[in-house]
């Protein structure tokens, strides 16, 4: 399983991650980022892609 953390002090809700991993990241009605803190191992490429495209580099994840 993957454990995902978004540093909300860095996040500016640019939403780039939403394009890469829409099942994990979404913008809510107030345009703020919301995310699911865990993902299955099979989604690692998607989560890594989301972390890579984050302009603030606010997304990290670990395998647990």
């Amino acid at each position, binding site marked *: 399983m993957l454990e995902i953390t978004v540093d909300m002090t*860095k996040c500016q809700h*640019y*939403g*780039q991650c*939403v394009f890469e991993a829409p099942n994990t990241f979404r*913008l809510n009605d107030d345009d703020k980022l919301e995310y699911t803190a865990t993902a299955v191992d099979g989604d690692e490429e998607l989560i890594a892609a989301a972390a*890579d*495209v984050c302009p*603030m*580099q606010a997304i990290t994840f670990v395998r647990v």
Partner: protein
Amino acid sequence: MTERILIVGASLAGLRTAEALRRAGATASITVLGDEPHLPYNRPPLSKAILTGADTADTLQFPLRESVADVDWLLGSAAVDLDLDRARVTSADGTEHPFDQLVIATGVRARRVHTVAGRPRQCVIRTRDDVDQLRPQLQPGTRLVIIGNGLIGCETAASSRGLGVEVTVVGRSPLALERLFGRELAEIFAARHRDAGVATITAQVTDIVDLDEAPVQVHLDDGTVLTADVVVEAIGSEPNTDWLHGTGIDLRDGVAVDAGMRALRTDGSVVDDVFAVGDVASAPHPLAHGARRRIEHWNMPAEHAKRAAAVMVAPLAERDARARATVAPVPSMWTDQYQFHLLSYGLPALGDDMRLIESNDAGDRVYGAYRGDDLVGVVGLGMRSAVLARRAEVLHTMTRYGATA
């Protein structure tokens, strides 16, 4: 058989290329040569969170994924020569680096016209070392003159005001950022800078006098002389292609490449096994109707890297076919100034009409840059979902342009 891949440029573009090559199944050894002493790091925060002190430079390094664990990083040594006949790159320390495939990812450097490198009070902002030079000089009351009112100049002004620095911005265009964001958004940003106490002057710099034991004097073409404790020159960039002179590669604006990121000679022919990615690469883009242009947006290197890797791992006979497909990443950029966080897709500067698409009572607004009826860019202050939704429309324009290019 490709046994040795050499990537020149230990940058975001270099890192993403190494990753993409492994993902595409490349089994060759990968060596990355970099002029800076650092592993690939994220540059955008240099003029923002690093300058304000919200973050420290050691947080900038990109994570190195397992896929690139076997990459050999040769740092702190710039490439100084490419010998295409012998397939070798020479670095500053005289070492020769042979390759079967070469990726040029040397990016750009800050352009210097009035300032001189090596003078402590004459700064630019492109690298960690640049900011290490500037940051300690920004103290409350420091008189900072910024030459250039583009994105880096404006971000530097905003970040410096937050530190209590006295900021004067000298720009050639009367309204900063107008070309990028359109008049109305540019006016909103200009008002914010004014409210924050940033002085702006529309003029050209003619000379900088920097004598020891005296403040720096910045002379302007209207006769004004500004007194500064430190100067930042932020007037754009220049591609790092000096080491490629004499190779026959088309270097009119960075490295000319085809849609497969393959380097082109001045006669338009492809240089087999030499590729370019990132800020240095001038690739055909659908928004420009297939014309080549360098797009220094942060998301482009990753897209270039994927395309280059797909072509690099293909047998020579199949590369033409893979390089023919249009490479069409939607350029994206952002800026953070004061509490303003602006997001943009496409190339708004290519539009001839900036129209308000949506706005709300909070002062958020989204503009579309149109060329005729075609949306070629979108710019939004706040209202993220609306901006993100318009990205698809920009992509649609690109698809149509690509189909007719």
